[in-house]
């Protein structure tokens, strides 16, 4: 009788604890979203979305987030376009071409370790590598400093390549998982019909893994969009595009790419009390746009994964 009672108490404490934990997490999540909307709602306007940031003490003249938005999109595209071919090739190589042995397990554990690597370490690495003179074509050569032939090492291209390096292990890992889900019978069937290995990969494996690959790409994009450390260290601290003006002319495209700028994350940082701006309204306004982009990416990933599941059923 006594034991039974203690179980009952035990049980109700356990239930209360479980529900309370979930309630805390959900409340914090909603709190973050609502705080962001509360502080940022005044800032959002067509003007805010379509003008460049402007140095001004007047709120009305301080401009909007056009260039940070373009910066986020530009950086994501550069990063993902560089990372995906390498990652996909590596995953295919690890799955189909490499022989089992020490080298393979070494590579796999290196990928594993680096897929959780702090982005700030990659940023540090890039900061030193891309100031080497041989990488000057990605940014600009430092001029006017005697005895220095270093590169400037901060530009959209540098940050984009760094982003690609940052997500490379992560995307390799997710592509590997995706390739594992392709049933062995498909591969054996194709090989048995006399198809070459490459034909099997390109005509059988990749098409059936398509939705998984797309999901991996979108998750990688999400990582780039949300990252601050790399942008901070390798894109330079300018809110505006610093290439030839006006930056949006096609003729000035390359000059924009090899010069500095900002993304939504650094814009939020600079306008927060931690940076120099201390104007919460625009910081949270930019955060609303950033969260909207991230939610869209997440929805796209869920949607595409859903299509994949339907097909498998």
């Amino acid at each position, binding site marked *: 009788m006594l034991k039974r009672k203690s179980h009952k108490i035990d049980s109700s404490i356990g239930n209360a604890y479980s529900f309370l934990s979930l309630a805390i997490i959900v409340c914090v999540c909603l709190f973050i*979203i609502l705080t962001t909307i509360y502080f940022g709602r005044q800032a959002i306007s067509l003007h805010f979305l379509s003008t460049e940031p402007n140095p001004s003490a007047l709120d009305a003249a301080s401009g909007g987030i056009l260039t940070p938005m373009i910066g986020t999109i530009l950086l994501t595209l550069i990063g993902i376009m560089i990372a995906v071919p390498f990652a996909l090739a590596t995953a295919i190589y690890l799955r189909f071409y490499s022989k089992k042995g020490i080298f393979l397990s070494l590579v796999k554990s290196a990928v594993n370790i680096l897929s959780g690597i702090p982005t700030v370490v990659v940023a540090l690495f890039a900061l030193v590598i891309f100031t080497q003179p041989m990488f000057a074509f990605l940014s600009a050569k430092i001029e006017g400093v005697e005895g220095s032939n270093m590169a400037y090492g901060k530009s959209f291209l540098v940050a984009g390549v760094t982003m690609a390096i940052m997500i490379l292990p992560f995307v390799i890992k997710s592509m590997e998982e995706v390739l594992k889900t392709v049933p062995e019978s498909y591969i054996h069937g194709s090989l048995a019909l006399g198809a070459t290995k490459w034909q099997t990969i390109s005509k059988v494996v990749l098409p059936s893994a398509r939705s998984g690959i797309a999901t991996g790409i979108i998750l990688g994009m999400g990582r780039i969009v949300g990252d601050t450390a790399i942008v901070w260290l390798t894109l330079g601290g300018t809110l505006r595009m610093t290439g030839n003006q006006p930056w949006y002319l096609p003729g000035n495209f390359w000059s924009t790419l090899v010069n500095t700028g900002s993304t939504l994350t650094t814009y939020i940082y600079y306008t927060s009390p931690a940076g120099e701006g201390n104007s919460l309204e625009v910081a949270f306004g930019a955060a609303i746009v950033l969260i909207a982009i991230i939610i869209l990416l997440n929805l796209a990933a869920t949607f595409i994964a859903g299509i994949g599941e339907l097909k498998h059923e």
Partner: protein
Amino acid sequence: MNKKAKWDFAKYGIQLLSFVSIAIIFFIFIFVFYRAWPALKVSGIGFFTQGGFDTQIQDAFNSESGVKAIPFGMLGLILGTLLSTGIALGFATLLGIGASVTICEFLPAKAARLMIALVRLLASIPSVLFGLIGLIIVVPIIEKLFITTDLQIAYLDQFQMSGQNLLAAVIVLIFMIVPTIVSLSVDAIKAVPKSYRETGFAFGMTRFRVIKKIVLPSARSGIIAGVILGAGRGIGEAIAVSMVCGGLSFIPNIKLGLTNLLAPTLPLAAAIVNKSEAMGSAPVEAALFSCGALLLLMGAALSIGAGIIEKRMRKAAGYNA
């Protein structure tokens, strides 16, 4: 003939791309340690056992050109990383297990799906926003609740006490870590076969007993994997933590007890962000790379630990790993 040539091209293309990416991955390891080596060599064992990072980084910045590295004591930073991530991980694990049990065992399917979507949203909120909200909400609250003028005067000779401290870093980290733990735990709990639970019920166990004695132990490996991944996220978190941590590498003192939570701290990753503006000088660069090297080592240890646990669990479950 033509077909054969095309096949080879694909094969060599894949080999080339994958060797480049594998080379880059190994190169990062080698490069970080190579650049960290001068600082590690000069500091010796004091690197792990001494404090004083704040004054050393000043000295390093002001050192004469030609000096490659000066001795550093990273104990404050290492403890800052271990404490902030460790405490946050403890709370996040408690919250995470409770939340995933509720999601999997108590909620109807639709509500559970909604909750999982919310947790995913929390996971993908960028760290700069966590930092911003920590800075304008958590920090002032801590200041109001715990920091009194008397307390500030008492510690004036050691540090300036403010709302930006270890406690703020821990609170921010808890909610950055918890989504990782929840999503892996939910997967693990869902994977526990229904028959296990039914066996428990058939013995007359209450729902809670079934969860505690059968479901959670069977899902253990997945939950531990989530905790380890969460630890990785906590260690590497730079921006959000650097915004709320106070930026001083205070070495916690056991005598102070819980007051340590109110002292400023500076974890390794936050130190890299905080001091990156001084990167032009060689000793600072070496010091920051040694922080990076330590982070890589910790990450490697976590990932190897996860691998070992996974193998053990598989063996225990009777699979051939």
